[in-house]
């Protein structure tokens, strides 16, 4: 009996439900358009601005891996982002390691912090989980304030960008830009693969029905911890890259405001969508940049945006688009 049915299984289906050829083509075209945009962007827009967007976009995408695909609201992600910025900045400036190794050290540092924080937080649910992550992140903030190597209020200044793999001069803005773009793409690909993997399938089932997942023999805590560490590592990748782009690491990036900002970015773009956090961070960074020149207090505007988002479009920009009539018609929810 079984053999008869196995032969009819579509092997090219990307997701759990079968996807039409036209949709796959549309998806590929959208992906190519996005890559082209990333390629030509530095010639159209100020590269440093795009690099800032890309760093925060990767940060938000990493955060979304946790809230969107694991259902855990971390309020301490700044520790991984800002912590990694310190690790990368310190290792590049004081130890003189090449930039690629510096970023790796930042990523590993983020992962290590994630392992410690996750170990304490993961067994708690809901608001308790969020509070533990917040308090541990605050402890790390005070550590950064007091520790010698971070230079306290001054931060680590004038971090050398160095030469990537020994021959690409990152002091060239274009070289730096494409490096950041590549890191961003690798990071987003890792997230995409993580979510759409056998491991991701178990995460999804845990989110759907935790009790059932336990009764099927899955140690839920380990899966959550795995996702937490992966999210922290990628937040670290984003933070370490940012330290090289701006050539400094300061307390701002480890502060709780940064943890709040990444929540705003993800919420604004759309929790649980691939594209949402990326778009959300672009909007928030853009908002900050324009308002900075007008002298109007940024926090009031971002606060208002946050409120509007929660009240009017809770699914975020991308989430609402996917849930709209047009979005449903084209099945956008499956690939945004």
């Amino acid at each position, binding site marked *: 009996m079984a053999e008869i049915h196995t032969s009819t*299984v579509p092997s090219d289906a990307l997701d*759990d439900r079968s996807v039409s050829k036209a949709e796959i083509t549309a998806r590929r075209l959208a992906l190519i358009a996005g890559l082209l945009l990333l390629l030509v962007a530095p010639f159209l827009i100020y590269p440093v601005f795009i690099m800032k967007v890309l760093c925060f976009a990767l940060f938000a995408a990493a955060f979304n891996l946790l809230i969107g695909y694991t259902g855990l609201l971390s309020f301490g992600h700044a520790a991984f982002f800002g912590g990694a910025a310190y690790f990368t900045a310190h290792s590049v400036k004081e130890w003189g390691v090449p930039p690629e190794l510096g970023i790796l050290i930042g990523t590993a540092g983020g992962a290590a912090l994630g392992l410690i924080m996750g170990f304490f937080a993961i067994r708690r649910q809901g608001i308790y989980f969020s509070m533990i992550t917040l308090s541990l992140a605050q402890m790390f903030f005070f550590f950064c304030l007091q520790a010698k190597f971070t230079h306290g209020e001054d931060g680590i200044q004038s971090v050398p960008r160095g030469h990537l793999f020994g021959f690409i001069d990152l002091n060239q803005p274009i070289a730096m830009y494409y490096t950041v773009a590549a890191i961003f793409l690798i990071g987003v690909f890792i997230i995409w693969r993580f979510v759409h993997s056998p491991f991701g399938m178990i995460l999804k089932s845990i989110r759907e*029905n935790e009790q059932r997942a336990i*009764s099927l023999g899955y*140690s839920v805590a380990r899966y959550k911890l795995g996702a937490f560490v992966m999210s922290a590592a990628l937040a670290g990748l984003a933070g370490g890259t940012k330290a090289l782009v701006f050539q400094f690491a300061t307390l701002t990036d480890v502060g709780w405001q940064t943890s709040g900002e990444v929540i705003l970015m993800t919420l604004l773009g759309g929790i649980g969508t691939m594209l949402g956090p990326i778009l959300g961070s672009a909007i928030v960074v853009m908002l900050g940049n324009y308002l900075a020149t007008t002298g109007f207090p940024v926090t009031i505007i971002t606060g208002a945006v946050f409120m509007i988002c929660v009240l009017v479009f809770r699914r975020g920009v991308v989430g609402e688009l996917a849930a709209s009539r047009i979005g449903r018609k084209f099945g956008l929810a499956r690939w945004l």
Partner: protein
Amino acid sequence: MNAPSPQSLGEQRAVLSARGLSRRFGGFLAVNNVDIDVFHGEIHALIGPNGAGKTTVFNLLTKFLQPTAGKITLMGEDITSTSPDRVARMGLVRSFQISAVFPHLTVLDNVRVALQRPNGLAHQFWRPMSALDTLTGKADALLTTVGLMRERDALAADLSYGRKRVLEIATTLALDPKVLLLDEPLAGMGQEDITAIAGLIRSVAKTRAVLMVEHNLSVVADICDRVTVLQRGEILAAGDYATVSQDPQVRTAYMGREED
């Protein structure tokens, strides 16, 4: 009042057994000094009026709840303080009273999720989803066994209540458990489904032990080899259905009313 000790059939050894199982919630003794033995190849029914503590016993046996007192052994191994997921990996798998499926996964994926761990495909975060295609054959075979092949690509949330219970049994069977604990597997089903699922439970019990909570006494009489009656957290009677149903205490407490 002392609970009657469960009888043992010759040299047969219990796959799952509990001695003096108790659980207290604050001042309320939900389960009191329960002994139970579940044997390979048999269907054991746990019956009793509402609030008798049947589901609590289930939660204790599967370690979703920690007993206040007592000892549980699974195939000779003490599992009294083992975690629920580890117990499941050892081969003691349960279903839930309130249907437990993954609502936004397809029927096929519900079964494939269950198959992932036993087939070593549970932690690969670097491999694409298509790695799970190798499980589709096994999943389809299970769906065929329980008769869910027609609903294979539907979302579990869209199934009727009875079909969800069937799906749950299929996912439970996917783990090839040594002991199967079914919490009211037939509740809310139509007569047609009841006949089919009772037959299914009977056939799977040939190669494993089954413990089920069930209210449908005609099914219990039909397919169960052994019955334990719980009342107010204590064992009222235990034995085969004929013996238990003749027990005067049981008749007044439970069956007399139900059989009217």
